[in-house]
């Protein structure tokens, strides 16, 4: 089972802190990979404007690197910042790594007055176009292209990858950091298959196995939404379902749990919005997840969430104090990230819970599926 760690804090911190938590939980992974996602970015040598989308990825060859830079120029993006990691390349196991990049861009002129949705679509299309270019020769991997989001994925032991990219030197700090410590083991090994998964600012990571993967994937692919591609891992659909819930259906975050693990008919019969929720379950039946999973997610506004599978077959715990919270798959992970909290206030969600850390990080919201559903106009 893979290990998960998330820390969110009002003050920026180094991703190395989260890697330390991964180290504490290291019994649970096999050095097959690390995925990191940072939000609320602060660079040591650049005053970053959080409106600028950041392109994260790996150019495996110089040619691909040139291809990337010229493509972005042609599409009208103006480079504002090009981050250079202080590398320790001998610590990286893979050999075809020409360059890890984080590049902040200004959107093309034509998007200046466009709505947030349109800008979001453009960023996603750009990411997908670059990904497609990279897939032609397998020489370019694109993780994310979104304002205030940085992603790193690599094969190897988490701590070693952190050392290789010198993540401890304070060059990059963030207010939110998600880390997952194992490559995909259910399907083929592939850099894209490493958690967290990302689409339009929405990211999730999971420890477990989604056994309903294929029917869910087929349904999402059938939606013909350009971003619903990839699926190198069975867990990628969690991010896409969250995206579908929030962006396509425009439902509140609480609906996510009702979609992936709906209550039974007997439970919904007693629920104040049972009629609406039964209907929602029917129409979203193909999105019901299965198998053991704890899903940890983050949203563009820095909201963090944790939900369990319907049987709570995977561990996950949340702890912390006002201003700083941590979610991890093991208690020792939370201990490593926030040692100065009151551990008696830690919370392990049950099958019906969604734990939400709101952007103000004052206190946790523990929302139960049996609670009245914050209704959209629909119900």
């Amino acid at each position, binding site marked *: *089972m893979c290990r998960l760690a998330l820390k969110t804090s009002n003050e920026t911190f180094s991703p190395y802190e989260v890697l330390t938590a991964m180290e504490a939980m290291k019994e649970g992974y096999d050095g097959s990979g690390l995925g990191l996602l940072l939000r609320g970015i602060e660079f040591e040598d650049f005053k970053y404007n959080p409106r600028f989308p950041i392109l994260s990825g790996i150019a495996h060859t110089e040619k691909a690197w040139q291809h990337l830079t010229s493509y972005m120029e042609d599409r009208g993006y103006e480079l504002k910042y090009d981050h250079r990691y202080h590398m320790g390349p001998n610590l990286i196991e893979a050999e075809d790594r020409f360059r890890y990049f984080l590049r902040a861009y200004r959107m093309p002129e034509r998007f200046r007055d466009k709505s947030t949705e349109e800008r979001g679509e453009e960023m996603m299309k750009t990411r997908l176009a670059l990904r497609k270019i990279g897939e032609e020769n397998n020489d370019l991997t694109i993780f994310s292209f979104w304002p205030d989001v940085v992603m790193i994925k690599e094969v190897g032991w988490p701590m070693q990858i952190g050392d290789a990219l010198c993540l401890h030197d304070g060059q990059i700090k963030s207010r939110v950091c998600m880390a997952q410590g194992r490559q995909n*083991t*259910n399907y083929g090994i592939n850099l894209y298959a490493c958690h967290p998964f990302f689409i339009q600012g929405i990211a999730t990571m999971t420890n*477990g*196995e989604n*056994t*309903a*993967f*294929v*029917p869910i994937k*087929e*349904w999402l*692919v*059938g*939606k*013909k939404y350009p971003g619903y591609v990839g699926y190198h891992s069975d867990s990628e659909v969690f991010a896409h379902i969250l995206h*579908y819930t929030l962006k*396509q*259906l425009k*439902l509140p975050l609480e609906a996510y749990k009702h979609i992936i*693990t709906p209550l*039974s*008919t007997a439970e919904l019969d007693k629920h104040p919005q049972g009629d*609406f929720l039964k*209907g*929602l379950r*029917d*129409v*979203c*039946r*193909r999105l*019901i*997840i*299965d*198998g*053991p999973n704890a899903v940890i997610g983050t949203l563009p506004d820095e909201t963090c969430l944790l939900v369990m*599978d*319907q*049987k709570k*077959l995977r561990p996950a715990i949340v702890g912390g104090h006002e201003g700083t919270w941590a979610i991890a798959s093991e208690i020792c992970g939370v201990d490593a990230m926030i040692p100065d909290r009151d551990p008696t206030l830690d919370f392990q969600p049950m099958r019906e819970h969604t734990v939400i850390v709101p952007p103000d990080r004052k206190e946790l919201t523990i929302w139960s599926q049996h609670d009245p559903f914050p209704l*959209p*106009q*629909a*119900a």
Partner: protein
Amino acid sequence: MVSTRSISVTPGSLTYSDLPWIIEHREDRCTLCGQCTSVCPKESIHLSHMRQRVPKLDVFSKKRGSNYRNFTGIRQRTTKANSCIGCGMCSMVCPNDAIIAVPGTNENRTLFFENQKGEPNKRGGRRNIQGRTLLDQIIFNRISMLTDPALDAGRHEFSLTTTLGRVLSPEDYLDRKINGGWIPPTREIFPFVIGSMSFGALSPNMWLGLLQGVAYCNEVLGIPVVMCTGEGGCPPWVLRSPYLKYIILQIASGYFGWDEIIRAIPEMQCDPAAIEIKYGQGAKPGDGGLLMWYKVSKLIARLRGVPEGVDLPSPPVHQTLYSIEESVMKMIQTLSTAFNHKVPVYPKISASTSAKSVLNNLVRNPYAAGLMIDGIDGGTGAAYNVSLDATGHPIASCIRECYLDLAAQGMQNEIPIFAAGGIGKNGNVAQNGMALIMLGASGVHIGKYIMQATAGCLGNEKNRCNVCNVGICPKGITSQNPKLYRRLDPDLVAERVADTFMSIRTEVKKIMAPLGRSQSLPIGMSDALGIADKDVAERLEIKYVC
């Protein structure tokens, strides 16, 4: 050499070894009680007087001679009309194990005479193909081993229901909720449905036993089983009872029974589970129901609104069938309106290479609640042998194609496809059904298996019995003759229905648990399927394993 005229040999003469079933009778055990001859539905055996030579050799007198003994014993008739059907009722009633019907191992010459008076062979049952079916060969092989604690089929909670009814897209659902639009009715049902067998094809005892069992499954066991009536309506008291909610009413091209149904609508206590419009049947595509006069009893005549004792061949097509678009659209909408748009209405068709075009037509019809596809291995109470054996399309590839077609349109949650035809042919009902579900069916209909499992139907693919069409069912399952159907105790049928569905439920869990599935029925989970046949694997887009 005797002249041919002196012995009675005609072109149609048969002898015992020509018959498909041969009666073996042990005279030394027979007490001449006569039970076998009286139970035999074909009057194939009769008591007859026979003479036996008893050789007698008197050594001292050096005279040779014979004595003769007259005795009464059982003889098998060799005429076509009375040839043994292998039902085995004789041995079932024999107190002394003195008689048994065994399959003839000689070539079956009776086949050449199945055309008496120019009428081709008609029978009940299903396609006489023996051996493992394709569905039997599909295995479930995506076992969650490395990353997953296995589920416990005995203790964990499983959600095993499926949705019958049109499901909106999530976007459309929310839009209609906001704007007060019509939300199509759906039912949450157990994915194994008792397929359409009419009140008429089935005896009253069988039919009521099934209904009683279904009610028990729903109300006591919590298994939401539903059953389909088939064409021919439903007893008037059932229409006005709370059990109607477990019943899918079928309307077919003869519209039999619908006068009663329409009259009962204002008095119904609840809505039926659904309405099935039968356009075709897997066992006999291009043929309607063939209820023969033998089975049109007083009760059946009353339910169907016809005179007693007349043949009731339903036309192969609906009278409104000008084109599939028009007919399907019109009928579905009419029936949906008749039940106030509160009951799912879906068509049933024979599996066919053209099934996809029907499906695509339904996708565009907002009232269509699903599609039921019946494959060539489906059973029937009466059909021409040639239809049963050689007409139709196997279910697996038809379902798979239709599902993938819906998936390509992103509609696979919206029109549930139900599959039927040969499920449980060799007894593997849960395995066969789950294979079809993982190929993309939302559920399956089982008819013949239910008759075999709950009432002891004797029919099999060796053409055993298979006389449902002529009303002489020796178990009383498909007969309208009270002397025969009183043999069947409805209470015992109901018990067997409960046994059967409890066992299917357990087996379904035993299939789902190792796959790591418990939250929803694994519809379309084709990654879990494998077969040791490359061509089939390629066609069905599942894994080839060996």
